[in-house]
C-alpha cells in the first residue's frame, strides 16, 4: 500500500483514532439496541427517528457516566496569595504597596507528570492512555502520580479508571496507583471532572473540601478561600468540609460557595457554561468582584497585581476574553469598562 496515498492517510487517521481512544462498552450498546429495535413492539413501531437520536445521545453519555454533578467548594491557599487567613473578613488589600497577586520569578512553562519523584514534561492534551504509556515506556512502578500545571497552561488527561480531567493553570492533581485507591484524587487549584461509572465512589479531596460522586460532571475551583466553589453539571454530588461536619447535596445547574462567615454553604442556580469557560480557553466572569478577575489575570499571564484603589476592586463586573489575547489588549478592554484605571507595566499591573 502506498503510504503517500489519500487512502492510506485516511486509514492511518482511523487507526490512530481507535488506538488512542477508550474502548467502547459494546455490551451497553447492544443491550440498548436490542431493547429499542428488536423487541416485538419495536418491530411494529417505525416512528423512532427523533427519539432514537435523543436516546442515542443520552445512552452515549451514560457510557461516560452522566450521573451527577457536584459542586465542590474547595479552598486553596498558596503562599503566592497575600491573604491573612486569620481574618474573619478576608481583606487582601491591607497595604497598597503589597500586591494582591505576585508573579513567579522562575516561570515554569511546562506541564509536569511526576512519578515517584521523577519528572516528565507532558503536552497540553494527552490522549487516552498517554500516562500509562509513559509509565510503561520508562518501566516505572510509581506509587503516586502527580500532574502539575504551571501558570498560563491548562492540561487535559485521563485517569486510570477512564475519568477525564481538565486541570486549570497553576493546579495540581495527584493520585495513588494502588488498585484500591484508583478513584481517589487530591486536588489543588481548579479542575473539571467527567467521572465514569466505576467501582465505588470517586473522591476528590482538597485541603478544604471533600467530594464524593459515582459518575458525574462537575467543576471544582479552589484557588482561594473566597473564590472556591463547585459547579454541578449532571447528577448529584455530595460536598462536605474535610472533617465532614457540614454536608450538602447538590442538584444539576447549581453552584455552591462557602458563605462569607464560612460556616455554611450557599447554593445558587447558574448557567454552568460560564463556569466552564476556562476549559475552552476563555476568561468568564459574570457579576464577580473585579478583584477575582485581576487575580485570575495574574495567574494566567504571570504578572504581579498592585491595588491602589481597593473600593473599586470590590465592584462586581461582567467580563469575558480569550486566554490567547495579549495582556495589553485585555487591560485595554478592562479600562474601557470605566470602573478603574489599570496600567500595565513590564510584568505588573496597577489598579487605581
Amino acid at each position: 500500500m502506498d503510504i503517500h496515498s489519500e487512502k492510506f492517510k485516511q486509514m492511518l487517521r482511523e487507526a490512530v483514532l481507535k488506538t488512542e481512544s477508550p474502548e467502547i462498552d459494546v455490551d451497553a450498546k447492544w443491550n440498548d439496541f436490542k431493547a429499542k429495535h428488536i423487541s416485538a413492539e419495536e418491530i411494529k413501531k417505525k416512528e423512532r427517528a427523533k427519539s432514537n437520536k435523543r436516546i442515542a445521545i443520552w445512552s452515549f453519555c451514560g457510557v461516560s457516566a452522566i450521573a451527577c454533578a457536584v459542586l465542590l467548594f474547595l479552598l486553596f491557599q498558596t503562599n503566592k496569595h497575600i491573604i491573612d487567613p486569620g481574618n474573619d473578613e478576608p481583606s487582601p488589600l491591607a497595604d497598597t504597596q503589597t500586591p494582591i497577586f505576585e508573579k513567579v520569578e522562575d516561570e515554569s512553562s511546562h506541564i509536569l507528570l511526576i512519578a515517584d519523584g521523577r519528572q516528565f514534561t507532558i503536552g497540553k492534551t494527552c490522549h487516552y492512555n498517554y500516562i500509562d504509556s509513559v509509565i510503561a515506556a520508562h518501566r516505572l512502578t510509581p506509587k503516586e502520580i502527580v500532574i502539575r500545571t504551571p501558570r498560563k497552561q491548562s492540561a487535559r488527561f485521563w485517569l486510570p479508571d477512564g475519568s477525564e480531567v481538565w486541570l486549570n493553570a497553576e493546579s495540581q492533581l495527584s493520585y495513588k496507583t494502588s488498585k484500591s485507591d484508583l478513584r481517589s484524587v487530591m486536588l489543588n487549584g481548579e479542575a473539571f471532572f467527567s467521572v465514569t461509572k466505576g467501582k465505588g465512589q470517586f473522591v476528590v479531596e482538597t485541603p478544604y473540601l471533600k467530594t464524593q460522586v459515582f459518575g458525574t460532571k462537575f467543576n471544582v475551583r479552589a484557588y482561594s478561600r473566597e473564590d472556591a466553589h463547585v459547579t454541578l453539571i449532571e447528577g448529584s454530588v455530595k460536598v462536605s468540609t474535610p472533617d465532614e461536619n457540614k454536608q450538602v447535596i447538590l442538584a444539576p445547574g447549581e453552584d455552591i460557595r462557602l458563605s462569607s462567615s464560612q460556616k455554611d454553604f450557599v447554593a445558587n442556580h447558574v448557567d454552568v457554561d460560564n463556569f466552564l469557560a476556562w476549559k475552552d480557553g476563555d476568561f468568564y466572569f459574570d457579576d464577580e468582584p473585579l478583584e477575582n478577575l485581576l487575580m485570575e489575570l495574574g495567574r494566567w499571564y504571570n504578572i504581579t497585581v498592585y491595588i491602589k484603589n481597593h473600593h473599586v476592586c470590590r465592584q462586581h463586573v461582567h467580563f469575558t476574553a480569550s486566554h490567547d489575547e495579549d495582556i495589553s489588549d485585555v487591560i485595554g478592554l478592562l479600562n474601557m469598562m470605566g470602573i478603574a484605571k489599570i496600567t500595565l507595566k513590564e510584568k505588573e499591573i496597577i489598579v487605581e
Partner: protein
Amino acid sequence: MVSSQASEIKRFEALYRRCYQRLFFHALSYVGDNYIAEEIVNTAFVKAWERFSDIQDESTDNYLLVIVRNGCIDYLRKRIHQPSIEEFPSLSTFHEESNYQEYEEKISAIENAIKQLSPVTRCVLYQCYYERKTYKQVAEEQSLTERSVKRYIMKALKFIRENLQPLGS
C-alpha cells in the same frame, strides 16, 4: 417461529458485537463528532436488522460498511454544502473496496504497528492525523521543536510501512 427468531437474534447480536467498534471509529474518523458517528452507525444497524432475514449473513458486514459510509457522505455533504463527491477524494476511493473483512485486516495491521510505537510518537501521530494540527501547533503544545515533530512522523510512517509489507501492497 419463535425459536428461529431467537437464533436470528443471536446471529445478529454476534454481527453487532463483531462490527460495532470498527464501524463507529470508521464513521468518527470522517465526521469527527461522537454523537453523529453513533447515530450513523445506529441507523446502519437498524437498516441491517430490518433486512436481516433477506440478506445472507456473510455479506451483511459489507452492507453495513456501505451504509455507514453513505451516512458519512450525507452528513458531510449537508455540512459543507457541496453536491459533488470529488470534495472528499478519500471517500470516493473507498467505494472500490467494500469488503469488510479485507478492510478490517488492513486497518488492524496499521493499528498493531501503531501500538508498538512510543507514547510520544503515538501522541504526535494522533494530533497530526486525527486532530489535523500543523507541525507547529503540535510542537507548541507538546513542547517539542517542529523538526522533532516531523522526525517522529517520518519514523512512524517508516515503521508502519515496514510492518505492512508482509500483507503485500
